[in-house]
């Protein structure tokens, strides 16, 4: 496993994973993942289908429970806390889902305002001002009264980001932000992520398999393959890596043909660790 040069002592670890294992029933998906994300950096989690990166993201925001190991968000181990404490942490993070996950029965404005209405005692007029601000930050000024079904894919993603930003989070998570978008719109989303980091010094975690976006927005990257961390480091370090799995992923080399469906599934999700058991 490659490591980046030790980050400066002044940087604080916002997210810290130690030997994280996550299982769905009998099947273990993540086999002891460990890494840190520093305050203010853009960390891209790269990986192919079935690599476990989505499970990793879901566990980071508390949607899945680890079977063992530690996840520390700002020092607190979320693997072992109560729902109430987790809710307090969730008020300080934002997540943008793959399809946007906007609530279809509410307008864009109501979507963005929802966390504010639920968790703050702010006046309606104040909330209106904040939501206009958030929409402007993502380039959706004037769209408060549109329904999600009236928005294009790119606009839905922006609205989802605005909603994730509503409570001024310290950590922002993105699940496949460029998925399903044409290259120009995808570039717009990438730029938005860079702007957010620039303007707010947020810690941003992006899960993606789009290499171009990843190299553009990342400070550091971590490659997950079959539930293990295969490589971690700055974009230059990964680009220069000689690890075979890293090279295969970055150089887009196809997997060898497999005849049996079960073999293919096994190849995707298990590895020597499992076979050795």
């Amino acid at each position, binding site marked *: 496993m490659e490591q980046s040069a030790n980050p400066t002592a002044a940087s604080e670890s916002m997210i810290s994973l130690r030997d994280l294992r996550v299982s769905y029933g009998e099947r273990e998906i993540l086999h002891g993942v460990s890494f840190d994300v520093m305050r203010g950096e853009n960390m891209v989690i790269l990986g192919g289908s079935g690599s476990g990166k989505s499970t990793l993201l879901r566990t980071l925001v508390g949607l899945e429970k680890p079977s063992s190991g530690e996840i520390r968000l700002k020092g607190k181990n979320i693997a072992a806390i109560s729902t109430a404490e987790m809710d307090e942490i969730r008020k300080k993070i934002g997540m943008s889902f793959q399809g946007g996950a906007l*609530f279809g029965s509410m307008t864009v404005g109501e979507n963005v305002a929802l966390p504010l209405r639920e968790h703050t005692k702010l006046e309606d007029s104040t909330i209106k001002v904040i939501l206009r601000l958030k929409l402007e930050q993502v380039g959706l000024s004037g769209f408060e009264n549109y329904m999600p079904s009236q928005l294009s894919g790119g606009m839905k993603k922006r609205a989802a980001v605005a909603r994730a930003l509503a409570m001024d989070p310290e950590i922002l998570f993105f699940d496949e932000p460029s998925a399903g978008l044409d290259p120009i719109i995808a570039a717009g989303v990438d730029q938005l992520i860079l702007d957010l980091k620039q303007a707010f010094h947020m810690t941003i975690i992006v899960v993606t398999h789009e290499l171009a976006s990843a190299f553009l927005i990342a400070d550091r990257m971590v490659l997950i393959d079959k539930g293990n961390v295969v490589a971690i480091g700055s974009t230059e370090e990964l680009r220069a890596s000689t690890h075979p799995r890293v090279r295969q992923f970055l150089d887009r080399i196809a997997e060898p043909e497999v005849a049996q469906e079960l073999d293919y599934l096994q190849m995707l999700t298990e590895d020597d660790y499992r076979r050795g058991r």
Partner: protein
Amino acid sequence: MELAAQIGGSVTDGLAYLGALASLGSRAAYFTFIAPLKGKPLRFHRAVSQAMQVGVLALPILSLITFFIGLILALQSAYELRRFGALNYVASAVAISMTRELGPLITAIVVIGRSGSAFAAEIGTMKVTEEIDALETMAINPISFLVTPKFLAMIMMLPCLTIWANFMGILGGSVFGVAKADFTFPRYIQASLDALFLRDIVTGLIKAVMFGITVTAVGCHEGFATGGGAEQVGRSTTRAVVVSLFLVILVDLVFTALFYFLSPS
């Protein structure tokens, strides 16, 4: 042996299902009664808009259906009563059957078709599009946000709808009563009211509330249990309707028997 194992399995699955419903119901009850005391919102606004959907918008179809049911009841009872020259009892037959049984039951069936399916479809779709996950990551409890307003709406609306259904049924019966049973409209209504005891109406309303709770629990449970994809949402919606129909009849049986054994002899 196979059959015994299958029956055993079905029984335990059924009990597990009821347990899941009870768990959902109790969590919704927590957010309705206890959480507000701890400062969490009651979401009355959402409950009111659900009540509009569940109750007010159901009135046209419910009125038509229960009007016809009342007329059917009158015709069926008259079929037998005329043998004894007792057609004047049609009014009371319709009134008692509606208030004790058919008013609550038919109302519940209409609500299952309209709202039970809608609840499952709404929540199921939200599950598939990750909206439920989004709620959780925003520290909003999905049960508090989605389920509790529906329970409140159903509990408020079902008794109201049932009273309306009872009235429409009696009205439907009056068509026969006036046309073929020598009643005038005022006398028919009077005969209906004379036949009713308060307990007839009250037992009907208690059943209505229990039906409402059942339909909401099943609809929401099936919604949350939806697998991935549009086809699964359709499955959940169908299951919600079918299981609700069965459980409503079961609840009906339990409470009808209960009221029978509790009634003064």
